[in-house]
């Protein structure tokens, strides 16, 4: 059974540098790293010391507040460095990979017959759990809450996003295993969304409710889909998982091995030949970045897409949740009368001598310039045009800025994640940091209400 979701409000940001649909194997990385910033709100506690030998899939640290939740090494090798920040907070854990990879293997079990508790324990101890995120708060899911539904979006509408239909090819078995197992953890439905004309391997899975989504970005964001399918109420909990992480979960359930391998899209206008690479979580980005080549010296490397990714460098490492790595030119230059002359080569949400409305399919080569300075909120009614959720974006942002918990709750903060505000941030005339405002609002609420 499939239901159609059509999104009208939104904006497609068409950029130059989409990945060609060919996949290469990236060179093996010497050092792999887990960046703890990827796990928002987790206080890590180390299980092994610097210098210890670990196998792929062996736990290296756990969540201090939830001891069962383990985080495992993506490769086998020697744990060479633990980088700490202020107050000895762990920032990054680095592992020097062995030439010959060895895996810690867990006992496999009959997924069909397994109990919910068995599945939960297996996912927690194997290091698969952190792939499951929860809303409200957009953090790693709390295993001690039963979600009312699970949402999986296999439709990438973000700028230059990896084509999920392509990267999930031939992974039917793993996906089905993961879905069957996750189905045990919720009495509700597993909602899977695919593009309208997609041939996603996920569409044929059993035990799911399929939704066909069409429309501009943010139609592919799981937050938009939740809001249209089954919005979150106060006290409710839903889980979200990205399809590529389902593959890792599925493979673990089938083979007992934690295989951190994934196919990522290397994209952006600074990349010479943007295409797909298979590599592992935590691999050094230079191992595939320079295989494709970069065009200019000054470019911004982003772990993720241009709207929601985090900044990194060529010697940085692939993030835990990423399916995309983007490189775009830095825009740290002045532009003579940039504020009043007609603009043809940048995207705009207005028509104030800006001409991106003339041709909706034109592809742009955007840089990281803010195109203006930070200002107080002035104009109104613009965000609503790109924000399809049944929420007042400006009012919610202001509630977060003044830390009014009651109003944040009433206006629907439970339903959103920072990524839902990436588009409003993109078009914001006052150049306000929307995603940061929402993140801080969510953190405050988690702290105060939990």
């Amino acid at each position, binding site marked *: 059974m499939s239901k159609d979701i059509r999104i009208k409000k939104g904006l497609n940001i068409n950029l130059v540098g989409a990945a060609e649909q060919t996949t290469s194997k990236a060179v093996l990385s010497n050092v792999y790293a887990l960046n703890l910033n990827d796990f928002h709100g987790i206080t890590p506690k180390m299980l092994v010391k610097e210098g210890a030998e670990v196998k792929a899939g062996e736990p290296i640290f756990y969540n201090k507040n939830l001891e069962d939740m383990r985080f495992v090494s993506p490769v086998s090798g020697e744990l060479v460095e633990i980088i700490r920040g202020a107050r000895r907070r762990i920032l990054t854990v680095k592992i020097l990979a062995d030439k010959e990879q060895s895996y810690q293997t867990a006992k496999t079990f009959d997924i069909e017959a397994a109990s919910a508790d068995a599945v939960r324990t297996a996912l927690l101890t194997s290091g698969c759990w952190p792939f499951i995120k929860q809303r409200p708060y957009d953090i790693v899911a709390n295993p001690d809450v039963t979600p*009312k539904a699970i949402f999986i979006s296999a439709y990438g509408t973000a700028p230059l996003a990896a084509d999920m239909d392509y990267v999930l090819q031939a992974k039917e078995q793993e996906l089905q295993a993961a879905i069957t197992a996750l189905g045990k953890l919720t009495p509700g439905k597993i909602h899977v969304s695919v593009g309208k004309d997609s041939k996603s391997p996920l569409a044929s899975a059993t035990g799911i409710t399929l939704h066909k989504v069409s429309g501009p970005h943010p139609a592919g964001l799981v937050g938009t889909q939740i809001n249209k399918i089954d919005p979150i109420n106060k006290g409710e909990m839903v889980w979200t998982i990205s399809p590529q992480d389902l593959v890792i979960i599925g493979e673990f359930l089938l083979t007992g091995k934690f295989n951190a391998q994934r196919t990522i899209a290397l994209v952006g206008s600074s990349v010479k030949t943007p295409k797909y690479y298979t590599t592992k979580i935590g691999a050094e980005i230079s191992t595939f970045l320079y295989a494709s080549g970069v065009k200019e010296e000054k470019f911004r490397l982003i772990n993720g897409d241009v709207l929601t990714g985090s900044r990194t460098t060529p010697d940085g490492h692939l993030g835990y949740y990423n399916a995309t790595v983007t490189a775009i030119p830095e825009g740290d230059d*002045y532009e003579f009368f940039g*504020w009043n002359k007609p603009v043809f080569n940048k995207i705009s949400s207005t028509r104030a001598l800006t001409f991106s409305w003339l041709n909706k399919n034109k592809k742009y080569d955007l840089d990281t*310039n803010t195109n203006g300075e930070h200002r107080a909120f*002035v104009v109104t009614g613009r965000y609503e045009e790109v924000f399809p959720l049944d929420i007042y974006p400006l009012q919610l942002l202001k509630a977060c800025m003044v830390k009014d918990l009651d109003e944040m709750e009433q206006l629907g903060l439970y339903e959103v994640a920072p990524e839902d505000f990436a588009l409003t941030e993109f078009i914001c005339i006052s150049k306000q940091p929307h995603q940061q405002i929402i993140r801080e609002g969510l953190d405050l609420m988690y702290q105060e209400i939990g």
Partner: protein
Amino acid sequence: MGMKEKLHQLKLKYQGKKMAPAFNAIHTFLYAPNETTHSGSHVRAVDDLKRTMNTVIMALVPCLLFGIFNAGYQHYSAVNGFPADFSIMEHFITWDNFWLGAITVLPLVVVSYGVGLLIEFIFAVIKGHEVEEGYLVTGMLVPLIVPVDTPLWMLAVAVAFGVVIGKEVFGGTGMNILNPALTIRAFLFFAYPTWMSGDKVWVHEGVQRAGTADAISGETILGYLAQGNSEAMYAKYDLSEMFFGFIPGSVGETSTFLILLGGLFLVFTKIASWRIMVSAVAGSLVMGLIFNGIVDAGWIPEYSKFYGLMQFDFWKHLIVGGLAFGIVYMATDPVTGSQTNKGKWIYGFLIGFISVMIRVFNPGYPEGVFLAILLMNVFAPTIDHYVVQGNVRRRMKRLKNATILPKPSDGKTAELKAETV
């Protein structure tokens, strides 16, 4: 070393200093800054506040130019008599008209921008924030909504009052409750009423010549109507003159035609809200129709002082006085107006409705649009509150059906599954 590099060096020199906002204001006026994204989205759309404000100014320039010619035209016509067979090229767009208009109107613009921006710069330097662009539009609006002979010192005092009390005390651009341009207009109106109303102030030298043998007057159309002289008014001005703006009035408000073009431009560029404009027009038409209906029903005698304005055809209200100007350029101010789309419909409608109501019932000064907008500025947050409450209530209603499930640690999830699926 080009100018770009020189300015960049200067910017680094000023960084962190007290005068940095003042320097940056001028620097960013020449060059869009070299700032790159730091958090969240790595790319940004091209629109910024400067571009937004600049678009509004572009929409105002035709009104300003027309106001300059009209200032001259009204003066010479009042002195020499109106031309019998009026032609635009011969009688309106002339060097004489332009010159007279330029020396009367441009000083208003200079004083408005000079005083206002000076205060903005001072506040930016004291408070250490960047100079925000809000005043670029306010400074252009002010000279367009005052009588042509407004003494410059008066304007300076009013601008200082409006910017400090109307805006800066609330925290500057984006934080004000009342429209600053209208605050300035209201200050002038209540502090110097004799300079803001009557039949002498709308034409250059009208006040100076009063009581002499060369006395001239230029009664506005609303003025005629308020005194019940509609025949005299129709004898002097026909409909096309009202629509195209060859009538006395505040500097830039007379040409409904150019205001309409400006309004269409603002709607097309998506800078101003079409919802407010459309609903304000609707509101004024409805109020006008009600008054016409009252007159038609014979409920009001001809000698009533309200009769003149009440019998004025409902749609003509839009082409005389400041109503069109107010609807297009002032009611649509996003900061002081309603912020929700639904709220904008209500807000605009009430502005139009109340404008015409005040116009008819205000005996001393037959124009109400600035009071109506200021009044609705005050009510805009209330309107928004009720609109947003609708969303909140919808969410509350949903909450009743919330599925809150027991924790796995209670061991009841297995049974739940059987029930719900």
